[in-house]
C-alpha cells in the first residue's frame, strides 16, 4: 500500500519522463480525431474539386499580367461611378437643403420674431453645417458602399487582398488592409469599422491607425478644387484638367505611400511585441444577393456613418457661427485667432484661416472649404462682404478671386492639399477608432500621428519652395 503522498510524489516524477511535445501531440490528435469523425459522418455530393469556371476565374484574377489591370479598372470604375453618379443627387440635395431649406427656415425664424443671435446659431450655424454634411456626404456613400459590398459578396475583394498581400507583408501588415484602405476612400470611419475583417490584433491596429491616409470622400472636393483653380491654371492651355487630375492622383498615391511607411514604422517600433497570425480565406464566387446587399449596406454603413456625422456637425455649426460673431474688443473671436496664428501658419505655407477652419471643421472634412470661404470673406471683405459669417460655396472663378484676395498663392494651395491629406481624422472617425480599439491611447496616437506628419511635411515643402523661388 502506498500513501497518497507517495503516489503524488511518484506522479510528479513520472511527469518529467513524458515527451516534451506531449501537449502539442495531444492537441493534434484531438483535432485529427475530430476531423476523422467528421469525414466518416459527412458525405458531400459531387467531387471535392473546385468547379472549373471558378478555377479559371481565379487564374485570371490572380495572374501577374491580368490581375493588376483588372484591379485598377474596377477601383477606377467605382470611383468614377461614385463621383459622377453622386453629382446630380448632391446638387439636388444642396438646392433643397442648403438653398431652399435655409431660406425657408430663415423666413420662419424672422416671421416668429426670434432674436438675431438665436437665428444665427440655429439656422446659419447648426442647420447649415448639418445640411452641408448631408448634401455632400450622403450620395457618394450611398453609391460607393453598395458597390463595395457587392464586390465583396461576389468574392472579388478577397482576391484583391490575396494579390496585394506581399506588399503589405513587407511593411508588417495584412493584405486585407488593402480593402479597408479602399473603403477609406469612401469614408475613414467606415474603413475603420471594416478592419474587423482582419483577425490578428496587431495588423488590425495598424490598419486602423493608418486608414486616415486614404483620402476620404469629404476631402476629394477640397483636393479637386485646389488642384483645378491653382494648379490647373498654371498648365498650358488645354492641359489644365489633366494637370489638376494628375495632381490629385499624386496626393492620393502619396497617401498610400504614407500609409505603408507608417505601417512599417508601427510594426517595427511600438507594435513589435503584439500577437500576429495571418489568415485569409478565398470564398467561392457566388452571385451577390443584390437587394439584400443594397439594404444592409445602406442601413449598416451609410446611415450609421451619416448619423454620427450629423451628431457631430450640429455643435460644430454652432461653434463656427459663434466664433465668427462673438466680438472680443473690436474684432470677432475668429478674427483674433486668425491674426494671432497667421505668422505661425506662414511657416507651414498655410494661413490662420486654414488652421481655424480645420479646428472648427473637425466634425467633418466636408465643411472645410465653405468655412474657409466664409472666414476669408469675413477677414478681407472680399466679394463685397456678402456671406460674411455664413458658410457658402461659389463657382471656381469666384473662389479664386476670394482666396487670392485672402493672400493665397500656389504654395498655399499645395500645402492645403498636403495638410488635407495629413491631418487628424474627423471626429466621427476618431470616435469610431475609440469604439473599435477601446483605447484612449491609440485614439490620441491616431489623431497626433498624421497631424505631426502633416505639419512637418508642409513646413518642409514651404521652406524648399521659398528657398527655390
Amino acid at each position, binding site marked *: 500500500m502506498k500513501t497518497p503522498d507517495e503516489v503524488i510524489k511518484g506522479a*510528479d516524477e513520472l511527469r518529467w519522463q513524458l515527451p516534451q511535445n506531449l501537449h*502539442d501531440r495531444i492537441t493534434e490528435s484531438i483535432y485529427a480525431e475530430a476531423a476523422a469523425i467528421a469525414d466518416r459522418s459527412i458525405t458531400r455530393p459531387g467531387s471535392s474539386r473546385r468547379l472549373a469556371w471558378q478555377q479559371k476565374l481565379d487564374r485570371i484574377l490572380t495572374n501577374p499580367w491580368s490581375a493588376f489591370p483588372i484591379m485598377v479598372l474596377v477601383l477606377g470604375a467605382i470611383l468614377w461611378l461614385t463621383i459622377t453618379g453622386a453629382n446630380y443627387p448632391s446638387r439636388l440635395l444642396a438646392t433643397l437643403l442648403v438653398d431652399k431649406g435655409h431660406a425657408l427656415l430663415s423666413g420662419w425664424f424672422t416671421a416668429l420674431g426670434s432674436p438675431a443671435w438665436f437665428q444665427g446659431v440655429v439656422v446659419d450655424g447648426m442647420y447649415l453645417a448639418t445640411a452641408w454634411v448631408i448634401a455632400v456626404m450622403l450620395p457618394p456613400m450611398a453609391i460607393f458602399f453598395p458597390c463595395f459590398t457587392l464586390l465583396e459578396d461576389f468574392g472579388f475583394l478577397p482576391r484583391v487582398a490575396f494579390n496585394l498581400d506581399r506588399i503589405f507583408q513587407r511593411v508588417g501588415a495584412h493584405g486585407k488592409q488593402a480593402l479597408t484602405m479602399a473603403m477609406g476612400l469612401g469614408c475613414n470611419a467606415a474603413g475603420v469599422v471594416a478592419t474587423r475583417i482582419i483577425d490578428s490584433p496587431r495588423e488590425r491596429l495598424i490598419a486602423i491607425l493608418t486608414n486616415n491616409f486614404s483620402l476620404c470622400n469629404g476631402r476629394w472636393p477640397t483636393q479637386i478644387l485646389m488642384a483645378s483653380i491653382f494648379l490647373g491654371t498654371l498648365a498650358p492651355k488645354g492641359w489644365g484638367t489633366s494637370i489638376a487630375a494628375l495632381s490629385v492622383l499624386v496626393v492620393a498615391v502619396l497617401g498610400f505611400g504614407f500609409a505603408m511607411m507608417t505601417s512599417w514604422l508601427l510594426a517595427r517600433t511600438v507594435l513589435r511585441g503584439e*500577437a*500576429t497570425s495571418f489568415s485569409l480565406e478565398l470564398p467561392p464566387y457566388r452571385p451577390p444577393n443584390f437587394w439584400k446587399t443594397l439594404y444592409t449596406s445602406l442601413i449598416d454603413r451609410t446611415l450609421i456613418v451619416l448619423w454620427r456625422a450629423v451628431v457631430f456637425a450640429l455643435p460644430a455649426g454652432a461653434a463656427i457661427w459663434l466664433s465668427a460673431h462673438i466680438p472680443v474688443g473690436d474684432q470677432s473671436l475668429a478674427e483674433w485667432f486668425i491674426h494671432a496664428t497667421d505668422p505661425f501658419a506662414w511657416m507651414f505655407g498655410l494661413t490662420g484661416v486654414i488652421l481655424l477652419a480645420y479646428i472648427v471643421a473637425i466634425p467633418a472634412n466636408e465643411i472645410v472649404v465653405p468655412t474657409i470661404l466664409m472666414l476669408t470673406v469675413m477677414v478681407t471683405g472680399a466679394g463685397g462682404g456678402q456671406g460674411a459669417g455664413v458658410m457658402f460655396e461659389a463657382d471656381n472663378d469666384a473662389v479664386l478671386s476670394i482666396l487670392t484676395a485672402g493672400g493665397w498663392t500656389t504654395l498655399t494651395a499645395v500645402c492645403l492639399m498636403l495638410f488635407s491629406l495629413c491631418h487628424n481624422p474627423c471626429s466621427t472617425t476618431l470616435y469610431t477608432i475609440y469604439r473599435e480599439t477601446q483605447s484612449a491611447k491609440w485614439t490620441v496616437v491616431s489623431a497626433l500621428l498624421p497631424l505631426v506628419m502633416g505639419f512637418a511635411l508642409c513646413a518642409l515643402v514651404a521652406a524648399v519652395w521659398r528657398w527655390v523661388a
Partner: protein
Amino acid sequence: MGFFRKHEVATTRIQLEDALKHLLDCDESGRGATVESLAGSLDRSRREAAEILGQLRGRGLATASDDTHHLTEDGRLYALQVVRTHRLYETWLARETGTPPASWHREAHRAEHHLEAAAVDALAARLNYPRFDPHGDAIPTRDGHLPKRRLVALASWPDGRPARIEHLEDEPENLYCQIVDLGLAPGTLVEDSRHLEDGSIEVRIEGRSLVIAASLAPLIHVGGLEDDDAPPSSLARLSDLPIGGSAVVHELSPACTGAERRRLLDLGVVPGTRIRCEFASPFGTPRSYLIRGALIALRDYQADRILTHSAEIEKENEIAAS
C-alpha cells in the same frame, strides 16, 4: 518573498537574485562559485561581488567553504523560484504574445525580479502548468522540484541516427538568433546528421538540408526518439508543393507556436489532412491551398511550418504528368 523588506532598493534585490542564480548554476554543474566567477557573471568589481556574497551569507542563503560559495537549502529554493519565474515568463511570451524569440530572454530577465509569488502561480495556472520553457529548459515546480537531465550536444551525437532537439541554449543572444533563423526549436526532428571536416554539421531537418556552423552545434542539445515516435520515411514542407500538387499533413513544425499554431489547427491543418496547392499570388506568396473544401491563403513562412509526407507529392506529380 519574505526575504526582503519593501523599502529596500530594487537594484539590491536584482543583484542578489542574479547572484543566487549564478550560485545555482555553479552548484548544478559542480563548479562552486567564487568571488571572481560572480564578478565576471554580474559584470561587477571584485569588491562589489564580495559584498554581495557577504549579504547572501548574512541572510542565510549561502555558505562559504574555503574560497567557494554554495547555496543553503533556503538559498536554493529562492534561486529556483527566480528561475521558475523567468522560464514561466518566457513560456508566456512565446505562447501568448508575438514577441520575437530573440527578445524572450531579455524581457524575462527584466520581469523575473518584479513578479510577486502570487502572480507567478497565477501565470503557471493560466499556462496549464507547463513543464518546459520555449528553449526546452525544465521549469522548476513551486516546491522547488527540478529534474536533473543529461543533455547531449548535437556536436557529439552519432552520425546518421535520428534525434529530436530537446534544448537550445539562449545565450549568447546573437548565436541563439542564428539558431532561430534556421527554423530550429525544441521538438524539431533531426532526420539525419553528418559531421563535416570543418566541425560544422550537415543535418536534414523538415525536408531541407542545412549546415549548422561549428559555433552553433554546442548550443543545440538533442535526444533519441521515443518508441512511438518513429520518423516518417521522408518529410517535405507544404511550401515545397508544386502548384496543382497535393500532400498529406504529417505534423506542424514545433517552431510554429502560439496564435499561429492554433490558427492552423483551427483551419483543419492536422495530421492526415490532404492539402492541394491551387494557385499563387502575382508576387509568388501567399499561395492558396484547398484545405477541407475551403480555399485558404497561406504565406510561405506559414507553409514552411506545415510538414507533409513527401512521397505523396511525387505520386501526385506522376498523376499530373500522365
